[in-house]
């Protein structure tokens, strides 16, 4: 396959960026999108040009590092991570736009690499269960109904890639934040911190500069792990319940 790529190039966080055009040839439909970019980068290095910087690591769709907006869609046309997108999803001769996540809470570091540390700070605000090592009771001491365990798992699948934020017209982090809150709040182990968790995490989310939610639903469409949109509704319910209890509203 022969393709034309238009790639966002930006030397550093404080530099101006622009789209640059590159032609790539000899692309196999079996290549992953990132292997196609590897091919481009090998050529750029040999030409003495700066290769395109992008985040990637496991290339199995689980670490959440890869983060490209492809033809306007977070992670591209398939519902998966960029690393699991294959070139068979494109046609010979296509022109493909490649951009970084666009969100004010995710500043660009270089080219297609952005700073997602705001996500880590949301987790630090309460996305955990306080269970210091050694203090745990026997694992079977508390049975967890299977539907609850499955609900927790389905939300715990979030890989923290940030596609939800990139896809959202408001740059909101509601789906990410709700996934963690729903994972932990449904479990009996998470109950003691149920209220503080949701209040603190939502507060931190707002402080990090993420936008508000208008239920556009783009986040759930872009999520490579299928975190459902109702996750946000559940979080809002948790928040209301906690806020009332805390006498905030």
């Amino acid at each position: 396959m022969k393709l034309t790529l238009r790639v966002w190039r930006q030397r550093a966080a404080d530099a101006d960026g622009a789209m640059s055009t590159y032609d790539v040839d000899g692309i196999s439909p079996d290549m992953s999108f990132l292997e196609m970019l590897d091919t481009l980068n090998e050529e750029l290095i040999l030409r003495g040009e700066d290769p395109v910087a992008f985040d990637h690591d496991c290339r199995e769709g689980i670490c959440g590092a890869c983060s490209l907006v492809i033809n306007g869609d977070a992670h591209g046309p398939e519902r998966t991570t960029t690393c699991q997108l294959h070139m068979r999803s494109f046609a010979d001769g296509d022109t493909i736009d490649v951009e970084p996540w666009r969100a004010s809470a995710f500043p660009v570091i270089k080219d297609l690499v952005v700073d997602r540390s705001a996500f880590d700070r949301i987790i630090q605000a309460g996305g955990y269960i306080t269970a210091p090592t050694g203090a745990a009771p026997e694992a079977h001491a508390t049975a967890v109904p299977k539907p609850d365990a499955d609900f927790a798992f389905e939300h715990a699948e979030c890989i923290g890639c940030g596609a939800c934020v990139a896809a959202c017209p408001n740059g909101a982090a509601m789906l990410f934040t709700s996934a963690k809150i729903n994972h932990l709040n449904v479990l009996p182990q998470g109950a003691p911190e149920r209220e503080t968790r949701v209040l603190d995490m939502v507060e931190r989310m707002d402080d990090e500069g993420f936008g508000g939610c208008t239920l556009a639903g783009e986040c759930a469409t872009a999520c490579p792990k299928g975190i459902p949109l109702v996750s946000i509704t559940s979080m809002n319910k948790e928040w209301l319940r906690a806020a009332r209890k805390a006498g905030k509203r």
Partner: protein
Amino acid sequence: MSTYADYVTGEPVVDGKAPEGPIGERWDTRRFEAKLVNPANRRKHTVIVVGTGLAGGSAGATLAEQGYHVVQFCYQDSPRRAHSIAAQGGINAAKNYRNDGDSVHRLFYDTVKGGDFRARESNVHRLAQISVEIIDQCVAQGVPFAREYGGLLDTRSFGGVQVSRTFYARGQTGQQLLLGAYQALSRQIAAGNVEMRPRTEMLDLIVIDGRARGIVARDLITGRIDTYFADAVVLASGGYGNVFYLSTNAMNSNATAVWRAHRRGALFANPCFTQIHPTCIPRTGEHQSKLTLMSESLRNDGRIWVPEAKGDTRPADRIPEDERDYYLERIYPSFGNLVPRDIASRAAKNVCDEGRGVGPGGQGVYLDFADAIARMGRKAVEAKYGNLFDMYQRITDEDPYEVPMRIYPAVHYTMGGLWVDYDLQTTVPGLFAIGEANFSDHGANRLGASALMQGLADGYFVLPATINDYLARHPRQGDTGRQHPVVQEVLAETEDRLNLLLAVDGDRTPDSFHREVGELMWEFCGMARTDSGLRKALERIPQIREEFWRRIKVPGTGEEFNQSLEKANRVVDYLELAELMCLDALHRAESCGGHFREESQTPDGEAERRDEEFTYAAAWEFTGTGTAPVLHREDLVFEYVHPTQRSYA
């Protein structure tokens, strides 16, 4: 002139920390004998932890909970992304919830036997003991393990064992355990007890007066090279499987932290013990950048086969039942498709070498779920393996519900690593190695679902207990500052190395060298090894190294985000480590576990150990790039599990 292969044998290396006495009491004894640090004094001690995978994440969180000041590093943008996250299958624990005859002793026995009698009994027994606490800990953290309808935890069986002791979270057990550790770590970061430095890569170790005192690390965003000081340094930087270029490791997993520690005096043990995982997706072409594993749990219900006849190119569904060879079930009737990984991998290689492989290039075997779907129904198969099937389909564009999967072995895990004593301390005082970075628990072959167990055992329970002893016995020394002559020297070496990489301005990319050395290793130091092949590789590696420093091309500068520079610097270390792996494989003229020397096999082609000569761990001392290392043997004593020829028939 002496060559690299003319190694000399030095003094034996002895584990001075494992107590005597009945094996079941040794861990208690050691914990009691280890000195403690007064809780009020702990915050005055700084511990550096490199890596945030299962071992590093759990260690950082636990040390901080105990009151130590932790400075933690990872090259990823977030500690949540370490490659432990990709582990699929599960985590072993001797809970015996199934009442199927499991016990601490059986897990200990299975692990020693599975490791082909090349692991240290004391360490393995401790691992089996701690396994039960890990599950408790993870459940308390909210790890959403699979559960039965009654609300209790579900388990499944895994390769190399006959009990059901593997706890799992669908096909994402590693992810869920890692997020548990990451969340515990996050709580400590928020509390100010852990200073987290993401996108920062360790490039060297600072050793002053014989003690590990800190590291040199590069900020991957600004390129700034800095020094960090501590009272102890913990390496949790993972394995070195990426030396093979193609492996199931993450793209950026690398050996630099352990190799640089080795160059600074830490012995490197059993480097040739690498695990080739039997169930990976075959490669599709030259562009392949990494290989993807399909969880071994698939072997619980999938049946592995190849055509009976050579060169049979009919599609799978056109090959009648009686013209198929379910070779694992045929050769190993009692374990069948659940034989240990090394055996399953070698068997796959053998049938492909016979010309009976399937798929492009004949480098694959079928993993067939037709029987499982007929027996359990598609829905049950989907519930158990759905995400793995989706992943397979996404990569290969084939539907495994309709046509059998094609699999082939790939490099997956390295059992070798930095030599550590029972306290997980390396031969450099104050330098500890945990998780895949050390060598201690899996011998010559790791059983499935044991890596997660070991990473978390080391990080949550072992290291936090043993590191106290070191810190209590050594006065706090604090920051020596950049001006100390040793620090100046280490910094200068690091800067010179990076500057040289940028200055060569040759005509080959870092990847091209990585690929070259990787292919060489796969051919000569992969699934089957020979004296002559290893000698060929040992001749070739110094030539590649020489060419590397003549022809490498790294664009850009060191003072910026520069992924080519990161990569090139990692390749520098692969080009030395590869040589040690080949030498270790050459010197160990026996077959054991994942190390198969063609000269040492039984008449029916199984690995043949030579216990009288090789019942030891080989710990190598660095003497200089390309110069012969010194071998220090640690004799292994088997008091509880008597070495026998492994039999899974």
